[in-house]
């Protein structure tokens, strides 16, 4: 199996890639920081992977997507694409600084949507494969403490829901992944919501299993599914009073 990992230096992507490497899969890694990408690849190589190819790419530069994705797909069919890149500015600042808010929105929403738009016809032509997109529980409902971040995730969620229906027609799957708070460099120094925080390894185990089973959506760890159901169904008159 050939797996394309986008945002491969992220902690969650790395933990997933280790699992795929141990299965002997071929890995194509895309990430912004080339020097870190080399370290990520060196870590995966001795774990039993078939091959590891590195493609440095700043995903914010949407015009550069085409060249990298073309070379990824030229070498052969891609069976699985994990879209794991993301950023989160200090939300307290982003609430009052549109430049910060828009920079995150560019990375988390626009760059992701551009990427998915580019990937969709390639996967359709293949007639098989699966897209796995990492969103967040934050995308389910905007909260006062992080709505600039939540807005980007919500955009991707709606986009993916439609894209899933389109790809279904040609036998391509799409799994939307909503992790809760994970201890990663992106969340370093932040208090965990409801005191719930998990590790990239736990999330990766859930993700790999959900992809094996071809699930449409995944909350990980699993306890987030009932929690988010409650939060989604909380009446607005109540929800607006919860400053969290």
């Amino acid at each position, binding site marked *: 199996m050939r797996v394309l990992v986008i945002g491969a230096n992220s902690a969650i992507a790395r933990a997933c890639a280790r699992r795929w490497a141990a299965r002997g899969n071929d890995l194509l890694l895309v990430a912004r920081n080339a020097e870190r990408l080399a*370290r990520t690849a060196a870590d995966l190589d*001795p774990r039993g992977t078939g091959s590891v190819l590195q493609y440095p790419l700043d995903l914010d530069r949407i015009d550069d997507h085409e060249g990298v994705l073309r070379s990824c797909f030229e070498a052969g069919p891609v069976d699985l694409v994990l879209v794991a890149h993301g950023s989160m500015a200090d939300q307290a600042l982003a609430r009052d600084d549109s430049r910060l808010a828009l920079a995150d929105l560019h990375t988390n929403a626009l760059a992701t949507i551009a990427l998915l738009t580019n990937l969709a016809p390639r996967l359709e032509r293949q007639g098989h494969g699966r897209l796995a997109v990492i969103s967040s529980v934050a995308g389910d409902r905007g909260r006062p403490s992080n709505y600039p971040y939540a807005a980007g995730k919500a955009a991707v969620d709606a986009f993916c829901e439609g894209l899933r229906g389109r790809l279904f027609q040609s036998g391509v799957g799409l799994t939307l992944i909503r992790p809760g708070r994970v201890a990663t460099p992106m969340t*370093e*120094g932040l208090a965990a919501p409801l005191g719930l*925080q998990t590790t990239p390894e736990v999330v990766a185990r859930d993700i790999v299993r959900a992809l094996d089973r071809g699930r449409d959506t995944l909350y990980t760890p699993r306890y987030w599914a009932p929690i988010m159901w409650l939060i989604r169904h909380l009446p607005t008159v109540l929800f607006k009073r919860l400053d969290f």
Partner: protein
Amino acid sequence: MSAATLPSWGRYPATDQRGRDCHWREDIERQLGAIDTTLVYGQGRSYGDVCQASSGRVLRLSGLDRVLAADWQRGVLRVEAGMTLEALLALCIPRGWFPPVVPGTRQVSLGGAVANDVHGKNHHRRGTFGRHVRKLTLYRSDRGWLECSPELEQELFEATVGGLGLTGVIAEVELALMPIRSSRITCFQTRFGSLDEFAALCTDLDQTHEYTVAWLDCQSEAGRGVLSAGNHCDDGELVVAPGRGLGIPFTPPLSLVNRLSVGLMNPLLYRLQGRRRRATRDYAPFFFPLDNIRNWNRLYGPRGFQQYQCVIPAGDAPGAIATLLQQIRRHRQGSFLSVLKPCGDLRSPGLLSFPLPGISLALDFPWHPRLAALFATLDQVVAEAGGRLYPAKDAHMSADLFQAGYPAWERLETLRDPALLSRFWQRVTGVGRT
């Protein structure tokens, strides 16, 4: 900054300690510059205060757990120091390699294994962990990145092996592995009725077995116990043991290990596991029996526990250990897990390495104010016999006892990174005390 406090394994002394995570090596540079003094906290498996920063602010390297290079032909692995022994085992066992030295738990980081120069059941054959380290990469606040090995920066290397994490942040470890043909262990168990019998058995079995260790019934008069010896099987499967079993979900309000339970369990254990027998076992229950009970330290209740681990030089070891046991009985204390281990004469490169040729004894006691008096008596016996205590397990030893047992401590102090300081080092050297 982590929300929860990061305790030591014995949970005594209880301090409020917070950590910052490092995910890439650049993070170490940034974080070490940002705090006055700090310390690296690995997996929190040392028992006392060697893993407690005097500032209460530690660095965690759990994100620095990558493989840097693997040579599966020669069995040399270069990894980041935050990798756990469990992760390392999962990597190397399927390829027919095993770490030459493993401690009693696989939940330790490799950086911690170097910093405490851990030993295992094969000390008589392979010495300590540090003997198998080929190279270390350190980051120091005053000298930046540097590599050290037995050939390169030799003095710094010797100070770092067993150097309690004080000579710089250990970021990368290059380890020589040993080949195995099976992940299973053939083991042999037999009872002994006294400490002299134990010493005689060891002399015999150490010749024919890679691994030897003994469980001791510390309430018995003569020092009876059960000795197990083992070897890697010659052929068979190379299988990674599954993860951990059940855990202790919360801390009971009182220690479940107490005089009553210890008094009941020790004779029972002697009877149950005592019979002479041979068997083959998975490597995990043989090396890491307690890993199957996650958070077993919680059994000791909110006040935690203290371990007393000493090594007594060969000549007088059975006599001194008999005196220690006598004192424990006299103080009406009992240890649930008492472990005897013969230590060989292979020298560690480490300046402050713990083992000496002789016998090591480890005892666990639920924390109690009365322990101080018992430990003072035991310390005297150890000092008179020319022995010493294991810093990784210690939360009480006096500066005098430490400095007598580890005369090289002053050399370590001159090589210490000024940005790294533990509560242990402050306690036993007086450095940085105001």
